[in-house]
């Protein structure tokens, strides 16, 4: 297969896409021209304005079909592949027991004013998600689920009190980038409260985080739509046990 692909409408290479949007203009010929201009700027050529509808006196809704001239270059697609091996619950428990020799402590919360707990509960509660049991089910993991609308200072305090290995935070509301603001505030607070190098593993999740933005947000990892508890457990083992051991082995070797 070639490394360059184009969208497919009904024939290879036709480049067809569908777009809809609203412009803050009354519906008239000028607005239609404006819609086509936007479509052209988006790379659609030819662009077919197939629907235009006035929404009150000041706005018009458009549907445009057309062929985009852009090529998708597959060589430039960077895929964040899972960087850790997927373990069964048994394997996770075994790894924690044998190599950490104590329970792994996880503190979870929805922070800010976000009250959407279904996502974090799916990861933490026994009931779980998509047929997988949540972290509470893992014998060697101790879960402290603080629920919704937790203030950042409270979260930090509780994490210290529980000696959390990892802090799991959920953010579902994204309007006006609420999730970004809350997450960066949270990671900053942890960095301030803990001595360098001792900050617990910071993990955030939610359906609308931008992939690859973990470091910008100051956290260790982001989990998106459809995450399962097993993935999170496996990641925790990898990040908190496997990689640290590897790190200290390397330290010892270099010492």
């Amino acid at each position, binding site marked *: 297969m070639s490394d360059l692909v184009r969208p497919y409408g009904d024939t290879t290479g036709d480049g067809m896409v*569908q777009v809809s949007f609203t412009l803050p203009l009354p519906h008239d010929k000028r607005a239609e021209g404006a819609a086509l201009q936007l479509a052209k700027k988006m790379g659609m050529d030819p662009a077919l304005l197939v629907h235009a509808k006035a929404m009150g006196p000041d706005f018009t809704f458009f549907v445009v079909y057309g062929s985009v001239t852009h090529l998708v270059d597959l060589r430039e697609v960077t895929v964040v592949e899972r960087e850790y091996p997927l373990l069964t619950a048994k394997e996770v428990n075994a790894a924690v027991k044998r190599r950490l020799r104590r329970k792994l402590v996880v503190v979870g919360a929805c922070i800010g004013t976000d009250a959407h707990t279904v996502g974090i509960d799916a990861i933490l509660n026994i009931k779980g998600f998509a047929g997988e049991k949540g972290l509470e089910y893992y014998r060697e993991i101790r879960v402290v689920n603080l629920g919704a609308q937790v203030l950042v200072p409270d979260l930090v305090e509780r994490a210290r009190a529980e000696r959390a290995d990892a802090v799991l935070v959920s953010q579902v509301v994204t309007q006006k980038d609420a999730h970004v603001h809350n997450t960066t505030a949270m990671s900053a607070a942890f960095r301030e409260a803990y001595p360098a190098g001792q900050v617990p593993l910071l993990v955030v999740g939610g359906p609308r985080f931008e992939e690859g933005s973990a470091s910008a947000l100051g956290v260790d990892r982001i989990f998106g739509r459809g995450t399962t508890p097993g993935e999170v457990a496996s990641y925790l083992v990898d990040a908190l046990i496997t990689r640290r051991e590897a790190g200290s082995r390397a330290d010892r070797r270099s010492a």
Partner: protein
Amino acid sequence: MSVERATLRLAGLSGADHEKVPWVNHLVTAVRGQVGLEHGVVLPVWDALRRGEAETLGMLAQKSASGSIRFEVPEGRAATTAARAGRTAVARGIRTIDRQRAVRDRLIRRHGDPRQRPWIYLIVATGDIMEDIPQAQAAAREGADIIAVIRSTGQSLLDYVPEGATREGFAGTYATQENFRLMRAALDETSRELGRYIRLTNYASGLCMPEIATLAGLERLDMMLNDSMYGILFRDINPIRTFVDQRFSRQIHARAGIIINTGEDNYLTTADAVEAAHTVTVSQLLNEYFAKEAGLEDWQLGLGHAFEINPDLPDSFRLELAHALLARQLFPDAPLKWMPPTKHMTGDVFRGYLLDGFFNLAGAMTGQGILLVGMMTEAVVTPFLSDRDLALQNVRYVLSAAGGLTEDFHPPRDGFIQTRARAVLDDAVRLLETIADDTRGRGSAYPQPLLAAIADGTFGLMRRPPTAGKGLEGVCRKAPGYVNPAIDLLESGPAGVTSSRTTQGRSAR
């Protein structure tokens, strides 16, 4: 003319010259040029073979193209001999059709029919058979039970059937024997994969209706679009030619166990679906009449109707239900074909997706037999791959979530729905009476009142006089000695196909 070519195809004549003119066209044109078609082609052709003008039918056709064959209409013993030889050759073709029907029956027994009613009917139309095939297979995997390959815009007015695998149609793919074969083979593979027999459909209409019907029988297509008046109204094909051709093509369909789909939906694209509702009923009754007359059985009558009422009309959905129920009750044993909204679809693809959902619901609630899947881009483009996928998702949701509503749906006798259904039926009966009582044509060359009604624009608002339209030159009046063994064999009825009738009769409820 196309009936004669179809006869030659049954006798095994296929292929085309280097300019893609089929040999059947060369041969029929040559015969016609020398002796006319009043006696049919079989007598002159097999007479020429008997006389040793060429060794095989194929060679005869080739030579006839260069004008080097002399044709005669044989008489007496010579005629009997020619007729017998022709009959033997044609019978081989009919046996192939019978064999294909048996294969279909076997495959249905093996893979099974669709699990649900209505059967889900989906169109592919890229213009390129090589793109059509994967799209059809994908559609079947997503739930389509029937794949229809739409034809290129130009084909119905071609007075020949193109040859070979084709890749350059406009808004559709040419119907050719090879394309039929390729697609049927691909779908056989997919049927195996899915454990469900996927049916294939094409169009027996236009100037080559009889030949395409024949090719469909030979290549085991399972359904064919075939309307007694569509060509007249929507392709301006001469009415006489159309009535002649549809008779033959339907005899073939009857023999091949093919389900026909009629085209009443088309009327509603040019006429208003509420005002003209009764013309749909009348046309269904006519299509039923002509079909039975040609030997088709109830389970083969995919009579058409459509969800084409202006959605802005109050109670539009209930009007649709009324019309759909009427058809269901008039033809309880026919696998009615329920067509989606097209005329009132717009570029608002969201609205279109919703409308298609209600179309699906009406189909499920009124127990339609075949549901042609509507596309949200109907008013925009020929369907995208994703349109088809979304459309099937729509159908699946509606049938699964709400299909059972039939149990709860009991329009009261004096309620809106039943009252409307009765009104449409009354109008239909009245229109049929008017047509039957029309005496204007009496004594003229075309005394049939139906022809007068068609000329008046009764159907789809199209006026089509019996002397106008394309292809009239291809019609001629039979001479007393006309011989066509295909027609004779078809009229003598099929042998040993009762089994399949019962199988499908049952599944067609």
